[in-house]
């Protein structure tokens, strides 16, 4: 039988593999020009804007200080967020107290917004614990290392919120949204895609906040996706939007709308914060092996903090003295991190046996006692 090829008409038969040219929601250009947007416009007070600036400067200091601490051997590793300050502060400040956040291991700026002492973030990277805050107190989950696993936890938590009747009541202090943080690499994970399916199926009040920083260690976004990530949402049955992740105003505005949509019971949203990982994946990584410095230089011009500073100064919302005050505050924070990190005690050997279970088993107790007795055989042992 002869094969009758469709030839060049095939594309017409199946239609395009992508919806439209990607649109980027932006309210503040890299040059510090204030834009307005038909859907996501937002009026910010001078206080809001100064708050964003302060948050971003302090978050960057947490990051640079921790990176330095790693270089000095005080941390085993550090996951840098350099360049992603606006995405994280915008997303973090759009939260209401009752909202709950499921982070990756890079959400230092969101942790800052949730009131977590950044010193607590260092424990995991120093190797003294796996996470040291109570998620129930801060409504901020523990850092999750397995890529994308937390997207399902966020969706399940949001299903619990629904069952608690904390969605769509109209009470702004009760209605609750949940945020699942992840990155472009995680968008390839089964768990993230399953989270999309569960969230859509149950219309769970969850916002999927993807910081597309273009790099999953050495693999560029093109290896993860043939289409703009936010466009994937439509295939799962909920809206997606791409926002300039280096624009704190736009990220805040888009996240506020997506969170409100969740709280009102209208289901999940995918927000793709388009940004760039200015640093390495972690302090153990060497990006010069796989990417061009040209690229990094281009993104330097889009720096999230610089563009807000330009806007604030140009509009007379801050002066040198105020900016110097924030820098001084950052210095204090740096001091706090340096001193606090070095003073962090190593856990005692026997503490490794703690909290394996809520109700400890007899056999684990025996293992602990056996090891304690063994340690006691060493002279001067004080475990």
């Amino acid at each position, binding site marked *: 039988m002869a094969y009758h090829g469709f030839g060049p008409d095939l594309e017409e038969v199946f239609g395009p593999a992508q919806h439209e040219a990607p649109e980027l929601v932006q309210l503040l250009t890299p040059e510090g020009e204030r834009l307005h947007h038909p859907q996501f416009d937002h009026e910010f007070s001078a206080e809001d804007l100064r708050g964003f600036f302060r948050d971003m400067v302090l978050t960057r200091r947490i990051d640079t200080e921790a990176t330095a601490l790693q270089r000095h051997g005080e941390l085993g590793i550090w996951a840098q967020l350099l360049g992603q300050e606006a995405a994280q502060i915008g997303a973090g400040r759009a939260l209401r107290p009752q909202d709950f956040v499921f982070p990756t291991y890079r959400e230092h700026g969101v942790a800052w917004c949730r009131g977590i002492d950044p010193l607590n973030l260092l424990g995991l990277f120093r190797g003294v614990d796996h996470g040291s805050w109570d*998620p129930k107190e801060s409504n901020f989950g523990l850092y999750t290392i397995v890529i994308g696993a937390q997207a399902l936890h966020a969706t399940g938590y949001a299903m619990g919120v629904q069952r608690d009747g904390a969605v769509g009541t109209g009470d702004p202090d009760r209605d609750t949204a949940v945020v699942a943080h992840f990155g472009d690499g995680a968008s390839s994970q089964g768990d993230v895609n399953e989270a999309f399916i569960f969230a859509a199926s149950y219309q769970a009040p969850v916002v999927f906040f993807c910081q597309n920083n273009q790099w999953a260690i050495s693999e560029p976004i093109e290896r993860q996706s043939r289409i703009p990530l936010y466009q994937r949402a439509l295939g799962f049955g909920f809206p997606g939007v791409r926002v300039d992740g280096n624009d704190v105003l736009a990220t805040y505005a888009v996240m506020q709308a997506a969170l409100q949509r969740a709280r009102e019971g209208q289901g999940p949203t995918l927000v793709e914060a388009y940004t760039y990982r200015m640093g390495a994946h972690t302090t153990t990584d060497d990006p010069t092996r796989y990417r061009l410095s040209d690229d990094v230089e281009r993104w330097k011009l889009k720096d999230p903090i610089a563009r807000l500073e330009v806007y604030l100064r140009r509009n007379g919302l801050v002066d040198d003295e105020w900016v110097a005050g924030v820098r001084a505050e950052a210095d204090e924070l740096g001091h706090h991190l340096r001193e606090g990190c070095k003073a962090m005690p190593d856990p005692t050997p026997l503490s490794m046996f703690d909290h394996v*279970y809520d109700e400890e088993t007899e056999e684990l107790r025996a293992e602990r006692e056996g090891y304690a007795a063994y340690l006691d055989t060493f002279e001067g042992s004080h475990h």
Partner: protein
Amino acid sequence: MATGQTQKITLAKGLNLGLRRAMEADPKVLIMGEDVGKLGGVFRITDGLQKDFGEDRVIDSPLAESGIVGTAVGLALRGYRPVVEIQFDGFVYPAYDQIVCQVAKMHYRSHGHSKMPMVIRIPFGGGIGAVEHHSESPEAQFAHTPGLKVVACSNPVDGYWMIQQAIACDDPVIFLEPKRQYHADKADLDEHEAPEPLFASRVVRQGSDATVLAYGPTVKTALKAAEAAADEGKSLEVIDLRTLSPLDMAPVYDSVRRTGRVVVTHEAHLNLGMGAELAARISEECFYSLESPVLRVAGFDVPYPASRIEEEFLPDLDRVLDAVDRALEY
């Protein structure tokens, strides 16, 4: 307190009734899984529960096991007590990462701040003539994972009580159900009788010549073997382990010190199965009481075979008796 009012139930009915009681007792208990709602589960273990407790509490989930367990983690963090049904043993592997990396480690990671009161029910074992992936025994993989507790029921009355106790437990429990037994035998249940503790093994037949250790589907096999052995004048003690992690070894040691001979039997593969751990512990604790090495009767170290020959793979009465004879003659 026993009232004498009993009902005859199968294992399936015992589990169903136990789930019902747990849901009545605590509004935070949820059931999740594939086909657990309208259908009542492919084995009908959740039959009628969605009708009585509603779709919010008996949740038909999308067909994605990692999704089921991962969202159950989130529900647990929100204060719920999810009871997850994995449809068949071989389908637990897509959820393996969530179980081992998240469910098992959350309490530890969080210094005890975040509890994981979750039950993952897995119909396990073979003998139902199924296609591939429907007859597996993955218990050792979970018993090997710190942070999980692993139990296996073997009979209708245990099914009724153990599922309720597992749900009440604040630690995550892998709950193994011998699917071949679901509709096999009936037993008398008195709901007012005080149950035995969940994490306890039990002597189900007393004997003096050798000890047979079993759990889940092989308990029945072991009991039949003991009956057959009795006809030949050999007295076998049979212990239903019931809990695989933690192991409850005191009744085992007590028995071995009396009999001096042990045969362990499970459907799971021999290599690094529960029998290996049991043999190691028995040799550490009862070395001078042993009259023979601990022998194991297990599934062979091959992938679960096609169902027409599965009875050759599964431990049966004769293979158990053969091992008993070898132990006695040692």
